[in-house]
């Protein structure tokens, strides 16, 4: 029973990791841009949801609103700042986004203090579900279900719509897009906002589970990189599989060998890169 | 006839069912200029890749100065005396022209270069070679400029010079005149002709004028095979060659 509990926990965690990582992955795929500020968008999403609930908004309003605000802020950042940096070597992509992440993190501390806080799950889902002698929090079940629907919607968006086709064509060959006459700049902004918004949403969804604190962004960034690398850069299926894999592994390790949980994950990541350089689902 | 400096026997390269190179047998004589021509997709560059060790042949063997190098690693072949230039210019763009040539000359003793205490200036032969090359390539005036700042023609000459600087037994040149203007082509032609006096040159070229003018031997390839081989005059008049080239890359030189 503990294992079932942990596997369910891991599944929920893994779906959040997926949301986080898939944004990073499509941004890298389309823009060839290594975004070290991705964790900061997650952090911001969590804090905005926290602020919304504190101000008396329903979680059902605060959560999507937080994601939306993050997406808009990220879109603005892309237009005003990041766009000027794309043509520079990757070293500077890393430098500028590390700077951005620091700015966001410190702003969060200035605005909300260094201690963090808790977000109550919405009232409808604050109970537990009981199945025989198996007890599980309803909110966590909701997260699994909700992210699964989101994942399906995202798949539809990337695989079946015009925007998706453009994004995929752009990832294959950036010059294609311009040749086809698309407004590359606008698409770049949209994709960046979408990726960041997903990170913000992951943060907002995670807030009732793990609470909020200023350094959750750094931690999330590390995990997102692990997931993207295991899954394969630019791969949707890879991000999903790897997200769940990492989530479940982390959750199981938490009962088996708590101190070594992280160690095992990073060891696993190094091992997978060695064996499969492009990740589980990466294209050659 | 003396032993060929570079020889291949029934060299083949296959990718699955696709045959890129089929039973290519070549004899390259020492101190000769040997050109390889053929329509697009004839397997010329594949042949180069197999000779330099970039790709492993599916069958056949390669010998350099009588020594079997079929399974020798690419950088080891450089040490044994096989150097190449690239169709797409490939230099060290932020380093000076002189440094580019010095590095190429130093590439003869690559493991010695691994010594972090050995001053670059201590390798006198490499320095002397770089100077000699600057002179021969007519690049002395721009010796201190970054290679990335040179004109296209100068870059192409430096590209060939990088292969020469390794003092190889055989130099492979992949379309040395690629992208050049007329003046630059004349300079390059003179350079290759001059090279043939003390080097063995094997080169791929699309410019028939150069090929017919300066080659001792011409090999015509088509669809991965050797079609015809011989002195320029004979190749020019070969009916098979004329047929192979008709409509494909016929030029005034071939017809007249």
């Amino acid at each position, binding site marked *: 029973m503990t294992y079932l509990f942990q596997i369910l926990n891991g599944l929920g965690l893994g779906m959040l990791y997926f949301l986080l990582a898939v944004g990073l992955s499509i941004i890298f795929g389309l823009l060839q841009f290594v975004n070290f500020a991705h964790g900061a968008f997650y952090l911001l999403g969590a804090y905005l949801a926290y602020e919304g609930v504190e101000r008396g908004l329903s979680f059902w309003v605060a959560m999507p609103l937080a994601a939306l605000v993050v997406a808009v802020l990220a879109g603005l950042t892309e237009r005003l700042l990041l766009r000027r940096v794309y043509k520079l070597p990757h070293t500077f992509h890393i430098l500028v986004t590390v700077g951005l992440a620091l700015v966001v993190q*410190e702003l969060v501390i200035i605005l909300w203090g260094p201690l963090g806080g808790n977000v109550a799950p919405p009232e409808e889902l604050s109970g537990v579900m009981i199945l025989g002698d198996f007890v599980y929090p309803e909110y966590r079940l909701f997260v699994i279900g909700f992210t699964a629907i989101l994942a399906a919607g995202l798949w539809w968006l990337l695989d079946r719509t015009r925007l998706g086709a453009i994004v995929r064509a752009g990832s294959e060959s950036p010059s294609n897009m311009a040749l086809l006459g698309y407004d590359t700049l606008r698409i770049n902004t949209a994709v960046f906002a979408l990726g960041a918004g997903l990170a913000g949403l992951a943060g907002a969804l995670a807030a009732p589970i793990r609470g909020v604190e200023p350094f959750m962004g750094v931690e999330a960034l590390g995990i997102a990189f692990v997931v993207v690398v295991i899954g394969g850069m630019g791969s949707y299926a890879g991000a999903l599989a790897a997200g769940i894999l990492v989530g479940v592994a982390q959750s199981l390790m938490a009962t088996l060998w708590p101190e070594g949980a992280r160690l095992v994950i990073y060891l696993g990541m190094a091992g997978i890169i060695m064996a499969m350089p492009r990740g589980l689902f990466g294209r050659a | 006839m003396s032993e060929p400096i570079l020889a291949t026997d029934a060299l083949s390269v296959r990718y699955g069912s696709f045959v890129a190179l089929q039973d290519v047998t070549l004899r390259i004589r020492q101190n000769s200029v040997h050109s390889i021509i053929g329509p697009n997709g004839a397997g*010329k560059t594949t042949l180069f890749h197999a000779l330099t060790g970039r790709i492993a042949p599916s069958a056949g063997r390669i010998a350099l100065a009588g020594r079997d190098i079929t399974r020798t690693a690419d*950088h080891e072949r450089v040490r044994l005396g096989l150097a190449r230039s690239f169709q797409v210019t490939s230099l060290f763009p932020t380093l000076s022209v002189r440094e580019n040539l010095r590095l*190429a000359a130093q590439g003869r003793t690559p493991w010695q270069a*691994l010594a972090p205490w050995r*001053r670059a200036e201590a390798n006198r032969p490499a320095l002397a070679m770089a100077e000699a090359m600057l002179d021969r390539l007519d690049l002395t005036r721009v010796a201190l400029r970054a290679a990335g700042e040179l004109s296209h023609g100068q870059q192409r000459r430096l590209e060939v010079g990088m292969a020469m600087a390794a003092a190889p037994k055989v130099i492979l040149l992949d379309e040395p005149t690629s992208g050049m203007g007329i003046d630059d082509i004349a300079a390059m032609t003179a350079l290759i002709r001059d090279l043939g006096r003390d080097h063995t040159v094997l080169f791929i070229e699309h410019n028939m004028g150069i090929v017919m003018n300066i080659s001792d031997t011409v090999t015509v390839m088509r669809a991965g095979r050797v079609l015809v081989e011989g002195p320029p005059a004979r190749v020019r008049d070969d009916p098979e060659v004329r047929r192979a080239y008709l409509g494909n890359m016929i030029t005034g030189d071939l017809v007249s």
Partner: protein
Amino acid sequence: MIPFLDRPLVQFGLALATVLILPLAMRSGTLASEILIFGLAVAACNLLLGYTGLLSFGQGIFFGLGSYVAGLGLMRAGLPAPVMLLLSLALGALVAAAVGWVSIRRQGVYFVMLTLAFSQMFYFLAYTFSGVTGGDNGLLDIPRPRLGGTVLSDAWTYYAYVAVLFLVLFATLQRVALSTFGRTLLAIRDNEGRAGAIGYPVRAFKVAAFAISGAVTALAGALHAMLIGVAPLSNIDYHTSETLLIMTIIGGSANLFASLLGAGAYLLAADALSAIWPRWLLLLGLLLIVITLFLQRGLWGLIERAVALVTRTPPPAESLPLPLVGRGQGWGWRRQPPPVEGHPATPTANSSPQGGGGQPGARPAPEANR
């Protein structure tokens, strides 16, 4: 670039001048020592980033390793400090060679990710095996070295100890950078494929660069542990790697004195700002953005421009290819393979003039054969 400023003697002179000026200009001997110690680690980072084009997030591993060697060597094993320092050099080289050997098998972004994974892995190793490393608390009460029977407990005496080692290693790194080895590293940074094609065993060079960089970084870590008396877990943290990279870029790449400059500027700014405002990292973040936008050659580039202005020589062109990891070179990820790499899977594509970029002049020019 201004050739005069890049001369080895000028560079060493600037480093020596810095070492001599710091005691006059600064109050805290601890901070001054820290500048030299980080200057060393940053110069070592520069060997990888600036000279070889390898952006490694693994430098913290070696720095932390050196700290632990100091803690364990001096306290548990009771080794004399010089022996311990030699040991940190050797172990740093060994571990860095191993990390490098595995990481360089992947290129571009995957290389960066691998070094990041290793960095996290070693951090959690140190965290998990707290019996050896002291875990969160670190190894405490690390003694200062003794010289002629006296312990160098005074900050400025220890500074002198660090300064001597700094100058020796700075000169050594200069020698490395100017050697056949160092100059070949620049070639590998510029065009890895061609470096291989003219005969260099590129992987051996990269592993050697890692080993040298790791050795110096570990020694710096050991000096740091003796300076603050602790080998903290944070020394092996991802943040240490990040900070070392930031210092390297702030200073300027492929120039060893620039590294000392980067370390010094960062530490002095951090010291001054953190005293005024606990949220000074916000300013650091803004600074990184400003550097990316306006100061890509780092502080050293600024100095070059200033000197050019004073001596009325033409200023260094900003359009010159930046000597950092660039697109299509170290990062050949899907966008454009470096010319030499190509795709053996489609061999015939290359043998056509179109395949070679379709240069217009590749066609026969009738005039050329007369």
